[in-house]
């Protein structure tokens, strides 16, 4: 069972705000969904994955990227060609 405090902890990890008025319902739904997932407890997880992995990296080639102006077009108050973010400390 996941408690309301667990949900608040996960919300903090994910930077997702939850209103206190939503917390009870979120926790209840969380537990119903996680309860359903318990069917996977019946699975044994011996053996390796057989998904073949292929290297998709290519040689570095200079291409034509988005211009700085276009890359910044959707950001708020860019400064001297940089994106501004909230303060860290």
């Amino acid at each position: 069972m996941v408690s309301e405090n667990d949900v608040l902890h996960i919300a903090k990890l994910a930077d997702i705000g939850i209103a206190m008025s939503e917390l009870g319902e979120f926790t209840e739904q969380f537990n119903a969904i996680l309860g359903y997932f318990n069917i996977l407890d019946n699975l044994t997880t011996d053996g390796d994955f057989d998904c073949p992995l292929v290297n998709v990296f290519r040689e570095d080639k200079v291409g034509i990227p988005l211009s700085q102006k276009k890359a910044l077009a959707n950001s708020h108050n860019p400064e001297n060609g940089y994106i501004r973010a909230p303060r860290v400390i």
Partner: protein
Amino acid sequence: MSDAYNAFLSDIEIPSSAAGPLAGIRVAVKDNISTKNIPTTCASKMLLGYIPPYDAHAVELLKAAGATIAGKTNMDEFGMGTTTENSAFGPTLNPRDTTRVTGGSSGGSAAVVAAGIVRMALGSDTGGSIRCPASYCGIVGLKPTYGRVSRYGLIAYANSFEQIGPMAANVTDVARLFSVIAGGDHRDSTSVDKPYDFTELHASVEGKIIGIPKEYFGEGIDTNIAKIIETSIDKFEELGAVTLEVSLPSLQYALSAYYITCTCEASSNLGRFDGVRYGPKPEMTNLWHDAYTKIRETGFGPEVRRRILLGTFALSTGYYGKYYVKAQHAKQLIRHDFRRVLTDCDLLAGPTMPGIAPKIGELVDDPLRMYQTDILTIPANIAGIPAISLPCGTFHGMPVGLQLMGKIFGEEVLLNAALAFEEMT
């Protein structure tokens, strides 16, 4: 509402003067597919005002083929939903009965085709998001093989499952649109260069072996729907196909494996939405965690927040092995099961959805019940195989969809069989 069904989020038209297979044809585009200079919101307040500076690969191909981009269509926020009620801009109404949902998440694309507003539309399918609304609205929708259509410019929700695909009123138009968007693209490292040749489309299913997975007719499937599907499958026998009962026992794990994986991927993919590079402006004087937490609380709807939280939980220390690792093993079992039955069979057939379109509001407060309605579409996404939904009858006046699934890169056989069925019914 910009139209009677709340199907369009933007009705800006971009005509193309190119000569090509789609010249003069209006094609609507789901609002999670980037369109240069046309707002693209993923039906989320988080992307209000975002105007992509580039086109998705599929949109570039539409324009080069002469199509007119007819606008951007409503959807469940970031593709997370089965009814299109999770849109920040209100639900899309089903043109067949406006008290019912269209299905989702490509509900707007299905509605504009079903209502005859456009001839074709692009959707995207992560766990059934093309086939579900196609079934509920009575049109044709194809989820291609994973990798056959480039995802470049598709705003990511769960990369390992999702594909862009065509939706139209009939198989021929679906095949025509598919022939334009299929093929390789170096900007999507999972893309495979397998074009589709529209001139090869012909009605044919004679001699094909069609597997009928018994799990597709089990618990939770409306018996009236099952009966309609069985009658439809009989028609394939009349067309010269052979049917064979098969079993995919690992499907019992499919829903859990899918929802764990997609929420984990969503928790990572949606980390980029913090209001800094696009979206609503964060409070710059607050500490960044506080600023982002507030933006993400108000910018995302409840279902998106729920899925990010579930994914964060399933990836967190102490739970990763119980959920994420188990889900990957379950996915492998499911892929093995499909590979096994598709060695003996050319195609698989069953219902697309367990019932007809629910009433608006019927499922929206019960996320687990909503997830369970995806039980028949999710397996094709896990297996990476192509799957199509075709109208095959009605129940209580609402369309019922027949789902055909094919071998990896087997869209040619799948579309030919679908056309044979369509011509007969």
